[in-house]
């Protein structure tokens, strides 16, 4: 282990060792000429060397070279490349403003990465989706949903039909770090997860990292989903919007000071409640029942100079469900809010800094009333974070990243307050949990030889639970026998972890490479979920003296090859994940209120492994991808399933998808998605039992866990996008989608319907399946002016 770290430090220090001669640098930003929007991940190549760099998250690049004349080309898929000859005899600043190539962009390119990255970069298991391109694919109920599109990639599975929750490479739903402009989004779903919180009009791009997680990310075991909001057009004012079956959207953007600053404001709201209102009499109890959700996204940015730029972005979303029945009323609102403030600063041509202050908040509430009984349950999590990240470009062969992050977490457990008659049942204090989380990292992405490129990184992670906190110590039967009270700021438990990250690319030919990656990650905050899917009621719980951090070691290896001048990108990746300290609820947990939810947990091991096959065509009139995953996900817990290994709920033997898009002409674009997956694992009782008064119960064998499978899942979706009008000033498009074209009644859940009374006429037992989304056509009108 020690040797490994020494090796890592040597690798990280290699830029200094390898290159000591005098050089000049060329640096700048790559942006969209029309909107001023930065082009993240665009490529800047030095023709003479056949080498290039990608712009970072802020569109910045820097290349250091020996003095000389070079031809430099900046390119981004869907944009006309710009080529320029420079005489590098001093440090040069050069910004590239790329113009959208209207012919190319019409061709509906779904993945916007530079195709060469497939085999040239060290990065494995990473995909970037460009929002504009995702919009031509079929959607359900007219709502474009980036998280559902991610589920079509190999290694990513839906947590349920039509659900935006997802599992990556056999990991749980809480093991995905979902970032919106770098702020953690704790609950990424609306309407119990059927829609994601990301309004497609407000999003610029999304990157998914499922393997070979770089050192700048941490805190989750399975994946990073990095969502970037649009910055807003800094040249002209625009309004974008859409009217769908269940929701409408409107986005406004424009310059505050032309070329220097811009704003973007996006709003979306569902209107099922409003549509139903006219049909409900005002005296009916239903008139005050309903459901809606809304989202607001705001982003502002200001460029002070070439060296300094500030961003402010915020998200606020809320779901509200209200039911007013005859005997009782219930109301539950829940929602996220995030705030990001960023300052980009360029120290010099080689050193780029981003400083960020972040706020993230998730709240869930249930209020209920019944005659003289009123109560409210609430829970949540709140983070204040600050982080600083540096990009250092010492020369064209090295790209160094380093930085640190600190977060203060507050976790509110499910807490009940209320009144029964005139008596208050509110607790004297809320037993919140407080924690400090910090990390520091350094990584270098560098060419060791012409053929070998390495990304080596090291992350140090620290987590500490601090008081105040009351810990209830339970005996074997679950009776509280002692209470340990911690005072404010008192150290309860601290964890220190080192996480090496390493990936290597070995180029085997002009268009092929073998890559391998080794990643260690720890997770200090966990979602306590009984359902196996993400629900708004699920509770975030920190590592503590009882809950150890979840821990994962992932090994992956892959072969990457492009065909036909990079028209086709292909890859095969194998992965193996060793998971420790996984959390499940103890057997017999019912999910009722618990004084210390940690007391309901039990801990175990997991492993998952699989093979992912991917073929992608990004250019041309006809493009899309085919992905297939063959995988296993297993769990072993001493206190569950009699200690026998069982399959995770999201174990899937086969999981495949075909995604296609075809641009017929400037007016019509067609899309198709086909999905096939093995059935999800579920539990089935073996016997029905009765009590003497005739009430029945279900008996499960002691090793009952996930032994049975729903039937395999498959469906076909089709879409057609019609551009009714497109000029520089006005654009109007219609999206017609059919979800589940051949109306396959996929099993969402299987349950036993038991009717009757065994004491009299007898019982009828009928297994039933519920299908959530049969054939669903939808139409959405989108506009832009």
């Amino acid at each position, binding site marked *: 282990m020690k040797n490994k770290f020494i090796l890592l430090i040597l690798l990280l220090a290699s830029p200094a060792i390898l290159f000591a001669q005098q050089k000049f640098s060329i640096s700048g930003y790559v942006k969209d000429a029309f909107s001023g929007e930065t082009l993240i991940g665009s490529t800047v190549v030095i023709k003479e060397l056949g080498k290039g760099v990608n712009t970072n998250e802020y569109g910045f690049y820097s290349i250091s070279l020996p003095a000389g004349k070079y031809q430099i080309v900046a390119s981004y898929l869907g944009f006309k490349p710009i080529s320029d000859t420079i005489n590098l005899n001093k440090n040069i600043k050069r910004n590239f403003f790329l113009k959208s190539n209207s012919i190319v962009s019409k061709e509906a390119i779904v993945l916007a990465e530079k195709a060469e990255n497939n085999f040239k970069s060290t990065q494995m298991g990473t995909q970037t989706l460009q929002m504009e391109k995702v919009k031509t694919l079929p959607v359900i109920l007219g709502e474009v949903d980036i998280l559902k599109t991610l589920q079509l990639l190999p290694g990513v599975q839906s947590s349920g039909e039509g659900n935006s929750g997802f599992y990556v490479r056999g990991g749980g739903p809480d093991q995905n770090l979902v970032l919106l402009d770098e702020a953690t989004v704790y609950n990424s779903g609306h309407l119990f997860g059927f829609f994601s919180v990301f309004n497609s009009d407000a999003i610029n791009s999304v990157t998914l990292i499922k393997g070979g997680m770089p050192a700048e990310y941490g805190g989750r075991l399975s994946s990073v989903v990095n969502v970037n909001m649009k910055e807003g057009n800094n040249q002209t004012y625009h309004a974008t919007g859409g009217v769908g079956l269940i929701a409408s959207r409107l986005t406004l953007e424009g310059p505050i000071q032309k070329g220097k600053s811009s704003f973007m404001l996006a709003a979306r709201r569902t209107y099922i409640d409003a549509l139903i209102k006219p049909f409900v009499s005002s005296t009916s109890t239903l008139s005050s029942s309903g459901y809606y959700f809304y989202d607001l996204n705001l982003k502002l940015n200001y460029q002070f100079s070439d060296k300094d730029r500030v961003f402010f972005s915020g998200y606020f979303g809320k779901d509200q469900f209200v039911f007013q029945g005859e005997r009782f009323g219930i109301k539950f609102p829940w929602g996220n809010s995030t705030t990001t403030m960023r300052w980009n600063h360029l120290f010099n041509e080689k050193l780029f800094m981003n400083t960020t202050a972040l706020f993230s908040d998730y709240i869930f509430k249930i209020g209920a009333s019944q005659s003289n009984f009123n109560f409210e349950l609430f829970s949540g999590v709140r983070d204040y974070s600050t982080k600083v990240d540096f990009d250092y470009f010492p020369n064209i062969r090295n790209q160094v990243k380093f930085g640190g992050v600190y977060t203060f977490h507050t976790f509110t457990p499910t807490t009940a307050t209320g009144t029964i008659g005139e008596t208050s049942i509110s607790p004297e204090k809320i037993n919140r949990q407080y924690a400090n989380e910090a990390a520091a990292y350094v990584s270098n992405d560098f060419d060791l030889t012409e053929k070998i490129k390495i990304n080596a990184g090291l992350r140090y992670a620290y987590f500490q639970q601090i008081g105040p906190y009351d810990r209830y110590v339970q005996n074997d039967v679950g009776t509280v026998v002692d209470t340990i009270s911690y005072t404010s700021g008192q150290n309860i438990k601290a964890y220190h972890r080192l996480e090496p990250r390493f990936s290597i690319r070995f180029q085997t030919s002009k268009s092929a490479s073998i890559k391998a990656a080794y990643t260690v990650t720890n997770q200090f905050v966990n979602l306590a979920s009984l359902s196996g899917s993400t629900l708004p009621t699920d509770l975030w719980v920190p590592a503590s003296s009882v809950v150890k951090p979840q821990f994962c070691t992932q090994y992956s290896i892959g072969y990457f090859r492009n065909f036909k001048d990079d028209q086709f990108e292909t890859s095969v990746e194998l992965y193996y994940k060793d998971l420790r300290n996984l959390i499940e609820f103890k057997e017999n947990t019912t999910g009722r209120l618990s004084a210390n939810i940690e007391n309901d947990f039990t801990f175990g091991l997991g492993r998952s492994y699989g093979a992912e096959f991917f073929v992608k065509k990004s250019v041309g009139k006809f493009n899309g991808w085919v992905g297939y995953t063959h995988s296993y996900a297993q769990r072993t817990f001493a206190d569950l399933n009699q200690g026998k290994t069982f399959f995770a709920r999201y174990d899937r033997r086969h999981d495949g998808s075909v995604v296609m898009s075809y641009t017929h002409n400037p007016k019509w674009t067609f899309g198709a998605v086909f999905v096939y997956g093995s059935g999800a694992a579920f539990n089935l009782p073996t016997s029905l*039992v009765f009590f003497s008064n005739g009430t029945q119960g279900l008996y499960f064998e002691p090793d009952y866990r996930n032994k049975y499978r729903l039937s395999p899942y498959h469906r076909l979706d089709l879409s057609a996008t019609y551009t009714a009008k497109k000029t520089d000033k006005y654009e109007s498009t219609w999206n017609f989608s059919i979800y589940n074209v051949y109306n396959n009644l996929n099993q969402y859940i299987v349950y036993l319907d038991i009717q009757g009374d065994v004491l009299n006429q007898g019982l009828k037992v009928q297994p039933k399946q519920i299908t959530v989304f049969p054939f669903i056509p939808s139409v959405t009108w989108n506009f832009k002016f």
Partner: protein
Amino acid sequence: MKQKFLFSLIASIFILQSCEKDINIDFPIAPSPYVIEGYIENGQGPFVTVSRGISFINEISNDDFLNLFVDNAKISLTVNNDTTAIELKMVKIGNASFYIDTTNLIGVIGNTYHIKVAVDGQVFTSSTQILAPAPLDSIVVEPAPITRADTDSLVQLTAYFTEPNPLGNYYRLLSKKNNDPLFDVAFNSIYDDAIINGKAIQFTIAGGKSQFQNNDTANFRQYGYFKKGDKVLVKWASIDKAQYDFWKTFEAQSSSFGNPFSPTVIVKSTFKGAGCLGVWAGYGCTIDTIIIPKD
């Protein structure tokens, strides 16, 4: 009707046109568990039944149910640290079999009762204590909160209760009206004192659920209420944690039937021994009688 339609409209938009279909499942063949249900309370003798579970078949008749009763079990009780075991005696009422005491064993507050059930070569054991009762302060008859043609003869019973300290008490509420042979429970029959510890509270006494188990909506509107003129017996029992856990998981499982978001709930048996599901329940109880005036 209009309301029902509108509700299903809302529901269908929420669940987005979900549809339901009968399917066939090849249920696993597995040994049926033994089901043991036993009670002992202050002032009463023990009462135990033993039955087998039944594999899933499409229809289970009353005869099938009665055939599940086991009449060859050997059941013995010991009290506190006594070494002498008291054998229970099997009695048959029709096809159903019960185990009762014929030696004048009466439940006493504070005593712990150990049960041992031997059947077909297997032994299952459990223990329960009859805890000190915590009587209700009073029970008040109030009109049902909604009045309509079909509900104006209904009333609700409100209990006033001062919950004793310290934390860690558990209760079960049962009721019986008029000539019902047995005490019945509501869908939720148990309470803990996690949020009411030491407080004076009031709560509604929901009547038994047995007669409302069919999905008869009109009938179901009357669930929980009592009728004017009813004679109601309210049994309020202090129970131990193991018993509470059994009922808690049992009721959570019942309420999760058919709920797609609900996790699997495994009922927590109070008995030791594999292949058995059961409860050995000691009640430290008080029984209040309420005669609801006719007007």
